[in-house]
């Protein structure tokens, strides 16, 4: 039980796919012009990650070693297409905004990396926990980036269709934040802050010892 909990929480902070492993940069930067885009991209990726982890783990003894990568790709591509169709049917506006980055979840390195390094070697419950954890970690990361960019870039935040700050915050929006350069700046600065925090906690713990 304890192990299962560890597998679930590892992806959220300790091994966060975006902030610690720096994987899957393209969708992370491309769709994060707003908080809600980040939310739905995160949800879609979490679904694919969890389902493909479960299937890969269930079939890990059936899939021959030699063809495991193409087999994993087929599994991932299947769930991506399911997400694509479901989004098209039920969230058409979001489907248009995320555009090409929905099918491109297939080549998000996080998913193949988890199938290869975790799900292919662990029992199904752990694989599912790992998928959910990694997915949540990814969702938190893209929502954070999307939220920061939207907040500074439009002086407002929209959450499930509701503007959180009414008519907007009292500062002129810095539109550059929702343009492509803003994506690179935001993630770069976030990573630097996390690095600094990491180093401080490391040096703090070494002085205690």
């Amino acid at each position, binding site marked *: 039980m304890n192990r299962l909990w560890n597998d679930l929480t590892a992806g959220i902070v300790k091994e966060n796919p975006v902030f610690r492993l*720096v*994987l*899957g*940069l*393209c*969708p992370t*930067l*491309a769709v994060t012009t707003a908080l809600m885009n980040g939310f739905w991209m995160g949800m879609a990726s979490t679904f694919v990650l969890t389902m493909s982890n479960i299937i890969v783990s269930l079939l890990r003894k059936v899939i021959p070693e030699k063809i495991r*990568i*193409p087999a994993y*790709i*087929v599994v991932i*591509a*299947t769930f*991506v*297409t399911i997400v*694509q*169709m479901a989004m098209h049917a039920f969230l058409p506006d979001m489907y248009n905004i995320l555009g*090409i980055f929905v*099918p*491109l979840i*297939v*080549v*998000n*390195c996080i998913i*193949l990396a988890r199938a290869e390094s975790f799900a292919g070697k662990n029992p199904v419950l752990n694989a599912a926990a790992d998928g959910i954890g990694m997915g949540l970690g990814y969702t938190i990361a893209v929502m954070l980036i999307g939220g920061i960019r939207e907040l500074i870039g439009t002086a407002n935040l929209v959450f499930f269709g509701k503007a959180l700050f009414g008519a907007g915050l009292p500062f002129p929006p810095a539109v*550059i934040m929702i*343009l*492509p*350069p*803003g*994506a*690179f*700046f935001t*993630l*770069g*600065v976030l*990573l*630097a*802050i996390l*690095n*600094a925090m990491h*180093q401080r906690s490391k040096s703090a713990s070494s002085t205690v010892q």
Partner: protein
Amino acid sequence: MNFVAILIGGLLINNYVFSRFLGLCPFVGLSRKLETATGMSMAVVFVMTVASAVSWLMQRLILDPLGLGYLQTITFILVIASLVQLVEMVVQKLSPTLYQALGIYLPLITTNCAVLGVAILNIQSNFTFAESVFNGFASALGWSLAILLFAGIRERLELADVPEAMKGFPTALVGTGLMSLAFFGFQGLFKDLFIR
């Protein structure tokens, strides 16, 4: 859509790295040295051009006539994966020198989203066969331009005195952001070219 417009679009205006956000993982990962950047660029130009051709044929000759458009994603990714394998074997047989230069980069290309990206964008843009192939080539050239320019900058950045926390990815990302800002100036420049 004329070929000049596709070329300028792929190289400058809709550059895959700076404006479309495609192929970023290898861009950040392999831009530390000019040498690796060159190797990857050659491999990407080659695979993206061929993948554009093959994926277009798959879509227009097989998926569309059979009404199987919904299998696009799975078909394209499998085509690209097998194509990369095939290219690897052919290059190994025909030109051992080229294989030595490209060898280690080829397997990495399957998960380069620029390749799947260009295949899907070609179909979405309703390009003809020739336009698709040329768009694959031009977009890959744009990607190469980006990584080569950036590798040059990064080789110098290595020598700069950067705060500890900014070393590695943060510097690379902020640097890419600045270049993306510069490339932003190209947008809207050749607007009239894009009218069909």
